[in-house]
Structures are given as C-alpha cells and as structure tokens.
C-alpha cells in the first residue's frame, strides 16, 4: 500500500471509532469526544491529500486544518458549556434524559 492509502485507512478507522463512540455512549462528554475524533479524522484526510498530491500549492492543506482545529475548539467550548448547563438543570449528563428541546 502507498503511504496515502495507509493514511486514508487510518483516518477511516479513526472516523469509525469516533462514530461508534458518539452513537453508543450515553455520557454526553464522551459523545462530544467521539465527534471530536471524527473531526480529526477529516483533518487527517486533508493533510494527507495535501502532502501526497502531485502538484499541490504551498500550505493550502495546513491552512484548512488550522482553521478546522480553531473552529472545532470553539465548538467544543460551546458543547462543554451546553453540557454544564444541562447538568445544572437535571443533575445528570446522560443524553437520553436531555429530551426537552423537542418541538
């Protein structure tokens, strides 16, 4: 296998682990963790395609990733804040219990 294929396989595995975590766990912090893993799998893809592309322009992939990480950090901060306020409301952070946002 070429290094690109190796990288893509690794990132697919990472994504699958993240997806399984997000779907299976009921603790909302762990769900957030899973989502974070999936994001990082995508980041890995971006880096890999940039690194092994035949005529890539300088640093495009890296810039994408840096932006994605910054956005992910902000998103995680919002997510954690949501988790804290859910906990304050119901003394519990299990996702099954947080069903009050339905229309």
């Amino acid at each position, binding site marked *: 296998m070429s290094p690109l294929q190796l990288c893509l396989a690794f990132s697919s595995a990472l994504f699958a682990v993240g997806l399984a975590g997000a779907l299976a766990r009921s603790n909302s912090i762990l769900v957030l963790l899973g989502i974070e893993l999936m994001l990082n799998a995508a980041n890995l893809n971006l880096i890999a395609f940039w690194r092994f592309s035949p005529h890539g322009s300088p640093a495009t992939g890296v810039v994408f990733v840096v932006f994605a990480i910054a956005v992910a950090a902000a998103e995680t901060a919002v997510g954690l804040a949501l988790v804290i306020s859910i906990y304050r409301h119901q003394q519990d952070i299990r996702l*099954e219990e947080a069903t009050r*946002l339905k229309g």
Partner: protein
Amino acid sequence: MEPLVAYLWIIPALPLAAAAVGAAAPRGSRRLASGAAIAAMAGALALSSVALKYALAAPSAHQFCNFTWFDLGNGAVRLGWLLDPLNAFMCVMVSLVGLLIFIFSLGYMEDDENFKRFFWLMSLFAAAMLCVVVSNSLLLLFIGWELVGLASYLLIGFWFHRPAAAAAAKKAFITTRIGDLGFLLGLVWLYDTTGSLLLYDGGNGFLEAHALGDLATQVAAGGLAATTAISLLIFCGAAGKSGQFPLHVWLPDAMEGPTPVSALIHAATMVAAGVFLVARVFPLFSADQGLPAATLHALTVVAAIGAITALMGAAIAAAQSDLKRILAFSTVSQLGYMMLALGVGSWVAAIFHLLTHAFFKALLFLAAGSVIHAAHHVQDIRELGGLGARMRTTFATFAVGMMALSGVPFVFSGFWSKEAILHAASEWGPSSLPLYAGLAGVVLTAFYMTRLLCEVFWGPPRSPAASHARESPAVMTAPLVVLAAGAVGLGFLGTPAWPWLQSRLAGAEIPARPLLDGGALMAVSIILVAVGLGSGWALYGRRPRASAAAPDPLQSAAPRLFAFLGARMKLDELYAATVGRLNTFAAALADILDRWVWGGAVGLLARLGEFAGLLNREVDEVGLNTGFDTVSEEIRRTGQAYSRAQTGEAHGYLRTLALAFVVLALLVLLGGGR
C-alpha cells in the same frame, strides 16, 4: 436705519401682545392682565406720539412701507403700513382714549369675577382698531375691521349669562356683518379692476391718480361709474360699523355690555372705524365728482344718509329714559354729522369732529359709568336724580361733556367741530337740506342733553340707590378730568382763526379766516343751541321730576309722538316684521328642503350603501373565507406531521445522520462518484 413707518406695526402689536398674555394667563391673574393691557396702551400711546411728530414734519406726504404677504399665482398679496397725519392723529386718539378707559375700568370692573377676560378682550379690541388705522392695504384694514367686529361681539356679550346681553351681541355682530358683506364685495370688485388693494404704492396704489382715472371712466350698470358703485359698497361696511341709518339698530342695544366697553365702542374704536374708512379712501369716493354724466354721486348718498341719521338719532334720544341709551342715540346722531361732513366733501371737518367727539363721548360714557357704578347699576334716569350734590367731580366733568356735545359756544371743542361741519354743509352746492337737518339736530342735541343732565343730577333722588350714591374712587374720576380737559382744549386746535389741525390733516396750508367768519351761520347755530338748552331747562330743570312714576313733560304734551320716538321709531319692529319674517320663512323653507328633499336623497344613498355592504359581507364570508380556511388547515396539518419527527433525543438525530452518511457513502461507491 429704516424709516419710522417700517416700525409702525409695533403700535397695534403691543396691545395684541397684551391680549395674548392676558388670554394665556390663569384665570385669577388680575394684576397681570390689567397691568399688561395698560402698559401696552401706554407704549402704543408713546409710539403714536412719536409717529405723530414724524408725520407732522411732512404733512402732505403719505409714507408707506409695503411687503408681500404671500405669492398667489402670477401675482402676490401685498400688505403695508401707512403713516400720514390722518393715521397719526387717529392712533394718538385711540391709544390715549383707550388708555384712559382702561384705567377707568380698573375701578369699574373691580368686583367682576371675569376681570382678566375683560382686560384681554379690551386689549384685543384696541389692537384691532389700531390695525385698521395704520394699514396701507384695504385687505389688512378689512382683517382689522373684522377683528373689531369679533372683539365687540365678545365684549357686548361680556355678561353673556344675561339673555339681553347675548342677544345684543348677536345683533351687533349680524347687523355689522350685513354691511361688511357690501364692503367685501366692494373689495373684490376693486381688486378685480385695479389689481391692487394697496392705498398708496408709489403710483400703483388705487388711491393714486393713475388707478382712479382708470376707474372713473369705467361704467357699471345703470350709468353708475365704477368708482361710484365700489364706493357705495364700501360705504355699506362703513354704515354698518358706524351705525348709520338703516343699520344703526345694533348701536343702542350694544349698551348691554359693561360701560367702559360702551365708551370704547362709541368713542375710540368701533364706530370711528366707519368714518375713518370713508375719510381714508376719500379720493375714491370723490372720484366721480368730475363726471357730469353720472346719475348719482357716491358722496350725495353719504350726505343723505348722514343727514337722516343725524336728525333721527337726535329725535329718538329725546324720548329715551335709559341713561346709556340716550348717549347711544346721541352717538348715532353725531356719527350722522360726521358722515354728513364727509358727504359734503369736507373729510377734514369730519375727522376734526371725530377726534373731539371721541374725547367728549368717552367722557360722557365714563361719567355715566361712574353714576351707574355709584347707583348700583340703576340706569333709568327717572329713578336717579339729585346726584349733583353728592358726586361733584362726576357732575362737573359730565357737565363739561354735555356742553361740548351740545355745542356751547367758544369754549368747548364740540362747538368748533360742529361749526366746521355746518360751514362745510352751507357751502355744498347740490342741496341745502343737509344744512337744515344739521341745524335741526343742533336744537335737539342741546335739548336732550339738558334733559339728561337735569334728570340725573338735579331734583330729589327718586330711588334708594340714588340717595345712597357716593363719589367714585380716584382711579375712575382721574380719567374723567383728563378727558374733560381734552374735551375743552382740543377745539382750539381747529378754530377758523387758526386752522392748525385742518391744515395738518389736509397736508396743505388752509388760510386762516377771522374767528367770526360766516357770522350769520354761527349766530343762527348759537341761537339754536340756546333754544335747545333753554327749552330743556324750562321743561326739566325748573320743575324737576318729583317721583319716578311722574309723566315726562313731553309725554303729556304729545303722547303718541313720544311713544313712537320712545319705541325707537318702531324700526326694530319693522325689521322684525320684514327682514326677520322673511328670514324665518326662508329658514322654514330650508328646513323642509333639508328634511325631505336632501334628507331623502341622502337616505336613499345610505340605503344603497348599506345594501352594498351586506352583499360584500356575504361574498367575503361564504366565498373567500372558506377557501382560506381550507388552505391554512392543510398547512397546519403538514406542520404537525413533521414536528412528530423531532423527538428531542440527541442520539436519535445522530443515528439518522449516521444512517444518511452510510447511504450517501454507498451511493458514491456504487455510482462511482460520478
């Protein structure tokens, strides 16, 4: 520095501002309202004196200051101020007499609860009159003229809780309005022919030779020159305001107002406006004199109306028993003299008489007010009497006014101004009738004034109120003394030997004549005055009335004539039977038309509208509403169906997302990504 005339507007603006202050002030602020009114009049007097000095420096010039009020189509409505000796003398007279009347009112109205309203209305009245006097545009003059009418309405009806006062106010307003309609028509006609309502405008004003020449050559219907017709229409307005013969009926009724109001109306403001107007536009009135073909000269009509009014007013006054009503009819009569003077072509004599009359008539009214105030509002002369001993100042000043009005020779101003009028009448070509009417009026005037004086101040008091009367306070008697001084002194400004006033008014030097020039006429009129005074004294002074119920000597002599004159020649009844009845009939006709014809048509239309509305509603409810209701019901149901998918479970959402992702990935793989 602009010429003084540009600032002339301040003279009427001062009392107007005082009226605004008084109107805006709270009800109880008596001192503020009266103080503002008196201060404004004093200011107006000071400014008028300056203006008079300025005007006398160049008596023949008409100084004016015109400005554009607003643009109208191709033209513009222009107003302006005018300064010449005629205006300036009027300004000084109005503000001086007004000021004295205001001061007098401080005492007279002291106990009235509407003291504040009284003073601001009086200020408005004076402001309106000053506006009439200083304007250089007939339009502005007309605005002031109507304001005078409004203020007089409000003041005559000042005690509006008395039905008589309310009726008198209405009568004054409507009667003068009839005249004003003619005035307005005259204005419209004048504007139509000359294109300007400015009196003087550097050659373009309608009183200047150019426009007058144009006007005199135009012929209206029936051989009348256009100037004659316009003059007669304007004279309608003047006759209404100045209480001339067919329209004089409001003036005696205007007595229902407070006495200072009567003084202001009769002396300085309202009735003077008509005479002033004719004198102001005198060139227009006299423009048809040179036309030999004219069937009627405007001034002939003025002279005829004046002579009739002078004689009629004096005759009616002789048979009245109300103190103020006698004075009112004497005003009617004196205004007749002024119109007579205008009619025979001597507007200078008319204005001279207007000025002297303002002083002695204000004096007489204020003295009468003092009597009425002291006698607790008893004003029937049969119930007064014997006040001479108790009210010395009032008696003395009233006597001065009475002698000035009667024309007692040489000392009193009324003699000189009346002499000027009679002299002018004797020189009038067309007819001697005005002179005879004037001479007959002289006898009657002296007679009824003697009667009035004797009844009020001589003999025994004939009612409890009269026997307890005491002299009025100084704030009321001081204006009387000042006015009495004016009533005596003013005459010497215009004697034949030194016609200072006349020359200044006419703007040209009038040669002095010997003092006793026209001695025959003067002798005749002095004899007539003596006859009037003597007969009055013989009938009322020598044997004073003993009780209120005793018959009048005239009544015993000629009961039917006395009753006829006492009922004011039945003119009010005549009007009620003719104009009044016609009016009632027209009103009834209008009522029927309104109720059945127009009312029916309007009702039919309303029914039609109602039917259309009903139809509209049915269509709306049945047709449109059902459609909309169905559509919105469907939309709601769809929304409900979708909202069921939203469970609130984050895992459910994630599962859906993951499933969709897998499906997408499969699609891409199987489809080869294309």
